[in-house]
């Protein structure tokens, strides 16, 4: 506890870096997964290669992916860009399937009604299909958010600064306090992201609450 109070600023700035490294891939990954998930849903034949292909990338252990990234990106091993791209890959891998499932769960009557009302395909996707798929996508996004927070900390083994640096520092000095503080800070961040997505889902799907209140 004393260690934490003495190093409040340091922990705070590591927490911010950690949050940035975890959230950017989440946003980019979601934006990539939506069109890919749509393709997987729209064209049956593409589903297996898309889901299996991204699933294969997901099996690569995080530390290995962080190390292999410079070969693809050409950036130095200490560049946080490697972490961002690697985590984006994991996020896309998790979400492509979720987006496809979410879109598939939209009731046929609803899409037919929208078409009958003269809503074009593009507009229907953004105003009908996608909003109705939000709860399913959000569930996948919460899993991705929480696991991103944990995976970012592994990058400390390569010397990329974030909350994981508290683990490596503490371990090198045989000192538990920073490690415990780091674990708790990671968990707090994971819970905060989880709640944020939960709240965002509620805001985006007002009809779910309206149904319950009536």
């Amino acid at each position: 506890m004393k260690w934490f109070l003495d190093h409040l600023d340091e922990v705070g700035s590591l927490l911010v870096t950690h949050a940035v490294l975890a959230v950017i891939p989440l946003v980019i990954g979601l934006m990539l997964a939506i069109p890919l998930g749509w393709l997987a849903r729209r064209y049956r034949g593409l589903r297996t290669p898309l889901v299996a292909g991204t699933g294969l990338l997901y099996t690569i252990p995080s530390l290995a992916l962080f190390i292999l990234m410079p070969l693809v990106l050409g950036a130095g091993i200490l560049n946080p860009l490697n972490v961002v791209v690697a985590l984006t890959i994991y996020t896309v891998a998790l979400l492509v399937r979720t987006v496809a499932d979410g879109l598939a769960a939209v009731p046929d009557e609803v899409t037919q009604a929208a078409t009958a009302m003269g809503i074009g395909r593009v507009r229907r996707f953004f105003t009908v299909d996608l909003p109705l798929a939000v709860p399913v996508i959000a569930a996948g996004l919460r899993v991705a958010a929480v696991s991103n927070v944990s995976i970012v900390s592994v990058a400390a083994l390569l010397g990329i600064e974030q909350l994981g640096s508290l683990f490596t520092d503490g371990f090198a000095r045989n000192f538990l306090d920073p490690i415990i503080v780091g674990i708790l800070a990671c968990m707090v961040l994971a819970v905060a992201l989880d709640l944020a997505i939960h709240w965002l889902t509620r805001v985006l799907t007002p009809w779910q609450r309206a149904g319950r209140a009536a």
Partner: protein
Amino acid sequence: MNLLWEWLADPAHWQGADGIPVRTLEHLLYSAITLVLAAVVAVPLGLWIGHTGKGRVLVVNLVNGMRSVPTLGLLFVAVLVAGPLLAGNIAFLVPAIFVLVILAIPPILAGAYAGVESVDPSARDAARGMGMSPRQLLFDVEIPCALPLLFSGLRSAALQVVATATIAASVSVGGLGRFLIDGQAYRDYGQMAGGALLVALLAVLVDLVFAGVQRLVVSPGLSAPRATGRCRRSIRRLIPST
């Protein structure tokens, strides 16, 4: 890129106690020990929870909660706390395996539990109606029906264990992670990238093996894509056709 191929092509890296074959075997050995230990704990517990319906909330929260615990931190805490109590090489290995087991339990538990819970209630009723004892119901109906989800739980646990065993090299145990960690220490990118490539291949291979086993073990009546009402066919098979 060249550094990577040079490192992999060097015959010296393919022999001896710190060569690629030995490190791969170590990695597989740690992973296998972990999976067996975790399965011994989690499979019966998961089946029991699914069978009785007790402790369901616990499983869901455990699985979600464990996901938010950073693996690396847990590993370091375990080694710093348990290390001084043990002597020699096992001072690192035992806590590392312990953490791996802790991480492997939730997915296996969830798979076993969800597998039993997903059994069609009418299949369960039919089995009871045929006069099956609770024991027969569990072993002849619920477990066979639970196999697909049970195996997908084992598969995701295996993946997690192979990945985390790599990170465990940072607490001085063997396995392929050694190349990644030692390469980093010696500023030898060829070794790091070579090791990383091997780890990635191993993980993909393990996943494929599990996918294959899953296909072999699971009853064809269950894996048929359009089977409505799970387990209907395996129930039918229990009834002697006259």
